């Protein structure tokens, strides 16, 4: 029988099936961070058991870390305790930690791929919904809760029902000024914030196959914003080339053997999907969100639609139906996160701001996704371009995407953000988030208002 890519990976990882119940799914790679793991470790200790496969878990500190003066003790007591707890737990249970100060520290979904830990065909979980990011490599990767983190630590397995499968095809070449973030915001606007719930998505079509790995990660990352547990893409030469030479990727003969195996990871041509959608690259323009869920998005040149049930969102955002967002003054810009905190994102930003100055009303946070991204920003001379434009580069972490550390947007302020969620209060109590691509964020930083990047390139 014809199988989807998802079926092939899932079936290979079934340890057992509970009659009339879920599958017991083996997990190849587990990532943890400081916020959703302490209670799981406490559970392990309380049970008096050991972590079954400590070598299959990798930890980093990202969610609540400061993005300035990381060499100093964390000022916020609770954040410091949480990070210390992670260090203590990793030491006690023999888990590798890339903590603050380590040259590989960074946002968990940035470091996994860049270190080559993430590899095609794997099952990957993490106590974080944006684990979907790793699907770009042809993996089954999804977010889990803390009880499930405990289960993986205890047994390297999870109890899971197989989700339904959805295929989203996008074909054609993106037009200038339109990037992968716009593609996924467009898809979410079409399917709504709950449209993917119960499904695992496979993205297919020439638009995705022409994307870089980093651009693909941006797409898969936001699968959860439609409610889908995850989204994946078949690995190809772009994937294999990306992995070659990375720290933990197979090397030499092993690499060649792995590539042969990875090449078998695709959906058979007549395989069945429970749901299918098709879109065209030519219809996609730079996108902005206007509401308080990622499905409330529109083309940057559109007016806010008069859609039923959106009053509460518009009231929170201080916006009205029929109003355009283009030209609206913004004082805050956030460029970073597991969605758009990689080197290509910063190259995109540099391309726009080079030789220009940020608008005087703008306060911008540029936060690299990892220490390696930060290093690359330095190496390519991008830091100078940013500094000359009046934009400060901070240190790696999740930062103002969720405002757990001190990087917050003040109450009532609009923030043009390359992150993934525009929920009420996400970037700080009362903060108003507008999700955009790095290009749109960069253009808006220069003008101090929401700007169509196509008008300045």
């Amino acid at each position, binding site marked *: 029988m014809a199988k989807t890519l998802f079926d092939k990976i899932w079936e290979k990882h079934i340890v057992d099936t509970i009659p009339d119940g879920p599958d017991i799914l083996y997990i190849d790679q587990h990532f943890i961070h400081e916020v*959703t793991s302490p209670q799981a470790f406490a559970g392990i200790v309380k049970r008096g058991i050991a972590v079954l496969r400590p070598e299959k878990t990798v930890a980093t500190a990202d969610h609540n870390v400061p993005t300035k003066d990381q060499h100093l003790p964390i000022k916020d007591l*609770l954040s410091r305790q949480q990070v210390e707890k992670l260090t203590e737990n990793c030491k006690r249970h023999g888990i590798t930690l890339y903590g603050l100060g380590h040259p590989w520290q960074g946002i968990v979904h940035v470091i996994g791929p860049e270190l080559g830990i993430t590899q095609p065909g794997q099952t990957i979980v993490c106590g974080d919904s944006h684990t979907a990011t790793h699907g770009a490599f042809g993996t089954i990767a999804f977010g889990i809760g803390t009880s499930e983190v405990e289960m993986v630590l*205890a*047994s390297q397995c999870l*109890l899971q029902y197989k989700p339904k499968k959805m295929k989203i095809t996008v074909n054609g070449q993106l037009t200038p000024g339109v990037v992968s973030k716009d593609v996924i915001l467009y898809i979410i606007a079409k399917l709504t914030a709950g449209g993917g719930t119960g499904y695992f998505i496979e993205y297919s079509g020439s638009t995705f196959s022409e994307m870089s790995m980093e651009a693909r990660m941006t797409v898969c990352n936001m699968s959860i914003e439609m409610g889908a547990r995850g989204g994946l893409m078949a690995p190809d030469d772009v994937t294999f080339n990306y992995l070659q030479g990375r720290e933990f990727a197979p090397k030499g003969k092993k690499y060649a053997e792995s590539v042969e195996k990875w090449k078998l990871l695709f959906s058979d041509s007549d395989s069945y999907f429970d749901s299918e959608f098709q879109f065209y690259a030519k219809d996609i323009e730079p996108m902005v969100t206007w509401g308080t869920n990622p499905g409330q998005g529109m083309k940057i040149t559109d007016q806010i639609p008069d859609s039923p049930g959106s009053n509460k969102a518009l009231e929170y955002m201080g916006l009205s139906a029929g109003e355009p967002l283009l030209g609206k003054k913004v004082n805050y810009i956030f460029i970073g996160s597991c969605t758009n905190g990689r080197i290509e994102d910063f190259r995109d930003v540099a391309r726009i701001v080079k030789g220009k100055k940020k608008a005087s009303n703008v306060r911008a946070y540029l936060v690299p996704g990892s220490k390696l991204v930060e290093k690359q920003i330095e190496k390519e001379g991008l830091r100078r371009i940013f500094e000359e434009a009046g934009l400060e580069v901070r240190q790696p972490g999740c930062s103002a995407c969720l405002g757990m550390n001190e990087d917050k947007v003040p109450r009532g302020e609009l923030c043009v953000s390359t992150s993934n969620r525009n929920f009420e209060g996400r970037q700080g*109590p009362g903060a108003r988030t507008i999700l955009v691509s790095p290009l749109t964020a960069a253009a808006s930083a220069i003008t101090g208002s929401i700007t169509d990047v196509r008008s300045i390139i």
Partner: protein
Amino acid sequence: MEKYQIIESTAIPLEMENIDTDQIIPARFLKATDRSGFGDNLFRDWRFDLNGNPKPEFILNDPSRTGTILIAGKNFGSGSSREHAAWALYDYGFRAIVSSFFADIFTNNALNNGLLIVQVPDEFLKRLFDAIRQNPKTIIRINLENQEIVLSERGEKEHFPINSYKKKCLLKGFDDIDYMLSLKQKIEKFESQFK
């Protein structure tokens, strides 16, 4: 885990769609390293003003509204995977959440903590909201064994789905990590054969 019992209670209606986990418990309250006390910050920014005073217009601050059942609009629990959302709801005193649609990760997290997820058709959800609007003291009865939710006064009832494995765990108070630990040999055998 506690064995699940029949829930019979008044309910608190929250007639809003897409209530995400950032609203249930904002990120800045996720810094604890144990599971207790999250109920104090449940719906923090809807419940309290800038100075930490309760906002009288928010329904949880109405002293006449009590109950262990929360009824909410569709797509409840979307967004972040934080289990703290389930902990906060449970710690506050809720034992069941009723909606017409739930996010996947939230559903697992809730069930893993003995917080029952009752998914009903849009039409029945509307009837629940209507009934509570007319009489805030309406009693709702949720029976997991029969998978039934009943509007006691009117006798209107609706079946709700739950996966049979989780149902058994909840009814018997089973802990699925204990179960997984019992499979250690099977897991090791799988590992040795995995290519």
